[in-house]
C-alpha cells in the first residue's frame, strides 16, 4: 500500500512537471522572451536616395557607409529594463530607425520627414490619394487613416488626412 501511495505521489508530481514541460515555445527567463519574427527577404517597396536603396532589414553599417553619417545626428537609447537599443539616424528629409537582431543593427523603418524626398514611384508628402493609387494601385489594407501596401519583408504605409498624404513609412513587416 505504501508503494502505491508513493507511486501516486510520483505520478502527480511527474504529471505536473510534464505539463510544465509542454510549452516549449516560451523562453526560460522573463528577460529572454522570444520576439522573433518570420522575416522574408526582399520587397518591391524600397526607398532610394543618393543612388542607394535603403532596404528594410539591411545592415545599418552598410547604410552609414553609403549615405554617410546622418547630418541631424544619431539618437540611441537602451530599452527600459532589458538589453537592446532603439536607434534613430536623422538624415534631415528622412529618418532611419534601427533595431537589433542577433547582435546586429538592422533597418527597422524609414520615415519621411518632409517633401524634399519621394518614393521611387514618385509619391511624396502632400500628394493626393489619387496619386498614391495611380502609383501603387488599390491593393492596400486600410486601417483608419493608414493605407498599407505589403510586399515581402516591407510594409509601405501612407497616412492620409483629408485625402492628402501626411506621412510615408517603409517598415519591417513582422
Amino acid at each position: 500500500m505504501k508503494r502505491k501511495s508513493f507511486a501516486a505521489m510520483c505520478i502527480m508530481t511527474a504529471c505536473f512537471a510534464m505539463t510544465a514541460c509542454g510549452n516549449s515555445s516560451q523562453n526560460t527567463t522573463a528577460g529572454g522572451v522570444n520576439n522573433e519574427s518570420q522575416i522574408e527577404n526582399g520587397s518591391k517597396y524600397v526607398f532610394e536616395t543618393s543612388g542607394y536603396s535603403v532596404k528594410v532589414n539591411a545592415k545599418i553599417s552598410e547604410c552609414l557607409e553609403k549615405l554617410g553619417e546622418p547630418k541631424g545626428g544619431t539618437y540611441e537609447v537602451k530599452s527600459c529594463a532589458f538589453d537592446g537599443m532603439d536607434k534613430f539616424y536623422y538624415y534631415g528629409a528622412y529618418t532611419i530607425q534601427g533595431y537589433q537582431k542577433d547582435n546586429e543593427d538592422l533597418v527597422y523603418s524609414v520615415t519621411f520627414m518632409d517633401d524634399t524626398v519621394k518614393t521611387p514611384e514618385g509619391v511624396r508628402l502632400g500628394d493626393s490619394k489619387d496619386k498614391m493609387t495611380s502609383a501603387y494601385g488599390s491593393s492596400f489594407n486600410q486601417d483608419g487613416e493608414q493605407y498599407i501596401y505589403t510586399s515581402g519583408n516591407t510594409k509601405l504605409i501612407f497616412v492620409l488626412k483629408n485625402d492628402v498624404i501626411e506621412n510615408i513609412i517603409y517598415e519591417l513587416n513582422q
Partner: protein
Amino acid sequence: MKKKIIRILAIVLIPTACLYFLQLLFMPKYVSDINEGSMIEEYYKSSKNHEVLILGDCEVYENISPVTMWEEYGITSYIRGSSEQLIWQSYYLLEDTLKYETPKVVVLNVLAMQQSEAKSEAYNRMTLDGMRWSFSKLNSIKESMTEEESIISYVFPFLRYHSRWSELTSDDIKYMFNKPNVTTNGYLMQVGVRPMTVAPQEVPLKNYQFSERNYNYLDKIRQLCEEKGIKLVLMKAPSMYPYWYERWDTQIKEYEDKYNLLYLNMIEQSEKIGIDYTTDTFDYGQHLNVDGAEKLSKYLGKILKDKYDLADYRNNQEYQKTWDTLTEQYHREKENKLKEWENIQ
C-alpha cells in the same frame, strides 16, 4: 481509516509542498540584475500610510525621489511603478493599493496612454508576478496577456520558469524566502551621467489617437479616485525619449479640461525645474539620474503641497522612524553608487 486519511493527505500535501518550494526556487529574483522585476512586490513591505501614490512606467520610478519630497516638504509618497506599465495595469495597481491605504493624491504618468497593447510577456511579468493575489491581479493578467501567455502560468509560475534549472544561481537560493529592497519607496536610483548630445526628433507616426481602451481605463482611474475622494494629477515626466508628441499632449490637455484635473507637462517646465540634460540624465535624456530626480521631486513636491494642502509629517513621531530609516538608506545608497560610478570612469 486514520492511516488512510494520513496517506491521502500525504499524497496531496507532499507534492504540493515540493512544487511550492520549487516555485520559490525557480522564480526570477530580480535582485542582482533587472531590479525592475522586484518593485511591485516591495510595496507590500512598506508602511502603507502614504499621502501621495505615484503610478506609471520607468518615467516615474527613475525620475521621482520620495525621500527628496519627504526631506523638502514632509510629504509621504510611494511609487508603484514598473517597466512599461500599461494604463490598465496602473488601474489595477491603484485598485490593489486601495486595499491597504487611501492616499490624498494619485499622480499618474501619461506616457502609457500611447500604448494600447502589451508588447511582451517579459514586461507583463515584471508588473504582474509581484502583485499579491486578488481580483485586481487576475483582471490585470487577463487584460495584459499576450497570445503566447496563459493564466495558468501566472497561477503556477513554476510552469513558466521550470526551464530556468540550467540558469539557477546562488541568488535563487539566497533570496528564495526573503529579498532585500532594490528601491526606496519605489524609486530606483541611478547616479551615472550620460549626457544627451542629440535630442530625439519628432519622427511622424502612423497614428496619434489614444485608443478607446486606454481612455476607458483612464476613466476608470479617474472615477475610482473620485469615489475615494482622491485628487488625480496627470503628469508627463521630463523624459526626452520616447518623444512626446504635441498631438498626444493636446489629447491629455483636453481630458484635463473636460474633467477639471491637473495636468503637469514637465517637459515644458524642465527649464523651470532646472534640469540640465547634459548632467542630469544617466541615459541620454530617457531618464533622469539622481540629481535630476531630486530636482523634479522638489518641483513636483511643492506643487502638490501647495495645491492639495498636504501635511508636513517631518515632526510627526509616527512617521519619523520609518522615514529616518528610508532617508539614511537612500543617502548611503547614493554615496555607494556614486563611488562605484567614479571608479568605472
